């Protein structure tokens, strides 16, 4: 039997080429209206979110672009992303406020960034950014979200609900089975039963809308239009509920791929293995999103304390961050920079893949939001200052892109809050204590 081992890129490519990945992409244009922004029946394509984590920051030295706004120059550290510069925003200068607590390295910072609060207890890590948004956008998809770790560590993922952090899928083969295995149902054949709670909400609301005539009668002509805006909006809400009560549009583009042969992935600390796995996961994620299986995906290319290393070198990325001196000429840790480049290259490839998939007159990358974040600012000190955060895609017209947005000491939660607002999460603030924010980066929002 051709035993499948997830250790080398070539093998993986072979597996995928063997017919496993014949999911037709993307949504058929015929299902979409003229400009591809909505289904044919007029309901908008839902926003989707991918979070993408890499460990250990972006390196010492001046990576913050000198200017903010549109015409900024990508610094050395991000130069490789130049081909997609117009499709992402670079957020700099955000920090996590420790509020008198200590910086539990590889934890406190991400906790602040992803949950809006800091606390030294791991059990306090609940309800991360992606689940807050996911609960708002995930609708009736098969998977509320998909968690993925590329370095073989199932605890590497930062997505959390009230019950704590969610375990991550470490094997592309297993994920493939989960997404497109026995339980996968062709959306064209799926049976549909309306959610009784939605039906009830719809009927309850009608009691409010029925008051329209009574109230409008007493309002002077000038103010009728103004008051009518309330009832128009109420009607829109009723319509959204009605859409959820109907069978969804078919996704004829999705076909059921054949199951691959192989084993579960072995843990590996080799960086090339993780990158190869990431590429494979990326492929599956693209299909899952385009086929409406989920609207939220959380990918972690490493754990925070990245144990990835080069072949023949015992020293992991994490160990290098502590032990490697900063090169006085270059101003950064040379070995650490190698890893950072590797991760960002993977990000670039993933984003490029999403960008190659057409949805209407845009691409899948345009339609989703890809939120890339890390656990520390300056890696050597494991600081919680100057976080780099990247947001690719415009979420189907929810974000402006191509901008450098300088936070200059803002709580980094402001980026996550901006994301929530852009994705329509109804919250007036996010975070607690000094990490609480109430204002999004309006310049990034449409």
């Amino acid at each position, binding site marked *: 039997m051709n035993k499948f081992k997830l250790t080398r890129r070539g093998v993986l490519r072979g597996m995928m080429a063997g017919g496993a990945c014949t999911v037709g992409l993307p949504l058929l244009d015929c299902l979409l209206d003229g400009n591809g922004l909505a289904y044919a029946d007029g309901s908008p394509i839902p926003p989707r979110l991918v979070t993408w984590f890499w460990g250990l920051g972006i390196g010492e030295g001046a990576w913050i672009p000198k200017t903010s706004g549109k015409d900024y120059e990508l610094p050395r550290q991000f130069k490789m992303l130049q081909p997609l510069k117009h499709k992402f925003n670079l957020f700099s200068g955000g920090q996590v406020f420790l509020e008198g607590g200590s910086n539990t390295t590889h934890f406190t910072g991400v906790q602040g960034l992803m949950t809006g609060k800091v606390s030294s207890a791991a059990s306090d890590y609940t309800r991360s950014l992606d689940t807050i948004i996911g609960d708002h956008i995930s609708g009736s998809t098969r998977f509320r979200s998909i968690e993925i770790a590329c370095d073989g560590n199932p605890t590497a993922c930062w997505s959390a609900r009230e019950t704590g952090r969610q375990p991550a899928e470490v094997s592309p083969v297993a994920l493939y089975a989960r997404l497109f295995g026995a339980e996968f149902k062709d959306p064209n054949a799926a049976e549909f039963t309306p959610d*009784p709670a939605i039906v009830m909400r719809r009927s309850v609301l009608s009691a409010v809308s029925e*008051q329209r005539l009574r109230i409008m009668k007493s*309002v002077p002509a000038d103010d009728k239009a103004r008051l009518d805006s*309330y009832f128009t909006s109420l009607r829109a*809400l009723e319509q959204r509920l009605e859409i959820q009560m109907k069978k969804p549009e078919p996704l004829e583009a999705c076909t059921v791929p054949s199951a691959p042969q192989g084993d579960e992935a072995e843990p590996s600390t080799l960086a090339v293995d993780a990158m190869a796995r990431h590429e494979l996961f990326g492929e599956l994620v693209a299909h899952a999103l385009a086929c409406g299986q989920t609207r939220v995906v959380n990918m972690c290319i490493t754990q925070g304390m990245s144990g990835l290393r080069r072949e023949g070198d015992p020293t992991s990325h994490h160990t290098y961050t502590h032990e490697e001196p900063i090169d006085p000429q270059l101003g950064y840790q040379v070995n650490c920079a190698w890893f950072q480049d590797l991760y960002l290259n993977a990000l670039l490839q993933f984003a490029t893949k999403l960008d190659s998939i057409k949805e209407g007159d845009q691409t899948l990358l345009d339609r989703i939001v890809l939120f890339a974040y890390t656990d520390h600012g300056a890696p050597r000190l494991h600081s919680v200052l100057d976080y780099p955060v990247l947001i690719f895609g415009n979420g189907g017209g929810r974000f402006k892109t191509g901008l450098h947005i300088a936070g200059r000491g803002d709580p980094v939660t402001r980026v996550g809050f901006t994301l929530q607002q852009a994705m329509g999460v*109804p919250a007036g603030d996010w975070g607690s204590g*000094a990490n609480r924010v109430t204002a999004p980066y309006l310049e990034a929002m449409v």
Partner: protein
Amino acid sequence: MKFILMRAAITCLCLSWAWCLSVVTAMAAPDAQASTTWIKLTTKQYQQSIRDIFGSSIVVTGRFEPDHRDQGLLAVGASRAGVSDAGLEMYDGLARNISGQIVSERNRTTLIPCSPKKTNVSDDACAKRVIADAGRLLFRRALTKDEVQLQVDIARNVTKATGDFYDGLAAALSNLLISPDFLFRFQRLEADRSHPGKYRLDGYSKAANLSFFLWNSTPDDQLLAAAERGELHTAAGLQRQVDRLLSSPNLETGVRAFFLDMLGFDKFETLSKDANFFPRFTVKVKEEAQEQTLRTIVDHLLVRQGDYRELLTTPQTFLTASLAALYGLPLADLTDNGQPDRWYPYRYADDDPRVGLLAQASFVALHSPSGRTSPTDRGKALREVLLCQTVPPPPANVEFQSLEDISNPKFKTTRDRLTAHRSDAVCAGCHRITDPIGLALENFDSSGGFRTTENGAAIDTSGDIRGKKFDKPRELYTVLSTEPSLTSCVAKRAYGFGTGRMPPEKDEHWAAILERFKSSNYNMVALLEAIATSDLFYSPPEKLLQAAASKE
């Protein structure tokens, strides 16, 4: 002479003097009588109403559609606001969240006055009682029989479907919370029995206007009862309620809400400073700066019953350790290690440049760009916020070079740069009037920190307003505190805060209100009382009267 308004912002304004005048004249026309048939609750009013009706165990979490500012107030903007799709979705989310909290096992025993015979079947009597009681406070009027019955039916149907009485009750409460009768304050007319052929606002509308004016919240049971008994239509009855509201601790809530709106503190949400330049301007300081000002105001106007004009010169304020560091002052915080900072009363020397509201970060930092100061912005803000003047926007195609060239060694201070900028004759007219106020506040950097030099050069804070000369910030405050528009402005804004519209400029009732304010030595409580007991405050909007007349 009427104050001439000007435009500023370091982004220059090159306007000719004549142009400036013409614009001001045009804008100084009396405010058209705004018609208000209903006023949307502002975010703060929604939150305060829920807190006052259901208690502090109910937490209002969720986003609101942003309020809009009009005539200097969000409260006036609210009388012109509609509801967007997104806004309604937010109200819907809030309504379901709040009703869920009310019927939750934790809260139902204290908040729901009756319990069903069985929790898995409907109980119309109990549902009716809850809906009628809560509905009266939420709608600020008694519900009609039909209205109550409609919600009782909903509660019964939902309970039937889910098998839980509290699900049904939550659905009904949620409907009340998303209803226009809660979200909007309707101004209802009724025939004025004492003046046949005329109309007046009904008692409920009067009660709501009074309560939102003084408490920024929904009328309490006593006020609604007074309205139901018709007492608000009699001078004595009204005075009783006004006295009661003014002597309540809730007055502080109302006064805070008013100044929060008038001083534009909603802008703090988007305010940020470059932390490299202003490391003391932390997130905490940003919040504390607002609180400092509100505490100073409450202390001066309510506790000490001080003269409103003296807010600009009062040496008395409140500080935290972080604020003290921002202002360059020592302040012993005796709190234990690890405990949150405390507020301390603080008194400046009378001639300290940091006395009064204008020197507080909530003014000088709020009206500055993130990296450096803009005397023009500050001058403009002062005139618009505190003196109710309007400043026209700057024209396009302006030469900014001298303003932005901060590396030019010839121009060390902002005054130097503005002076160079004013050498352009077109710019000079307006800037001459705008900038002196801002330049006198140059001792405060963009974050509100105190300084006496800029790029190594001493800061010159002298200037004059209409011939009144001043040398330093403290003298500027004195000059400004004698401006007649300072006191008329706060009166107008207070009236606007309560009614959602500006007062008529030439009106005997309005003149009487101003006179009462003056004769009280500009006592804020006296002003509030004068407005709250004035016929003008309760006069129905003109358009409403016209609509009523046309129906006849």
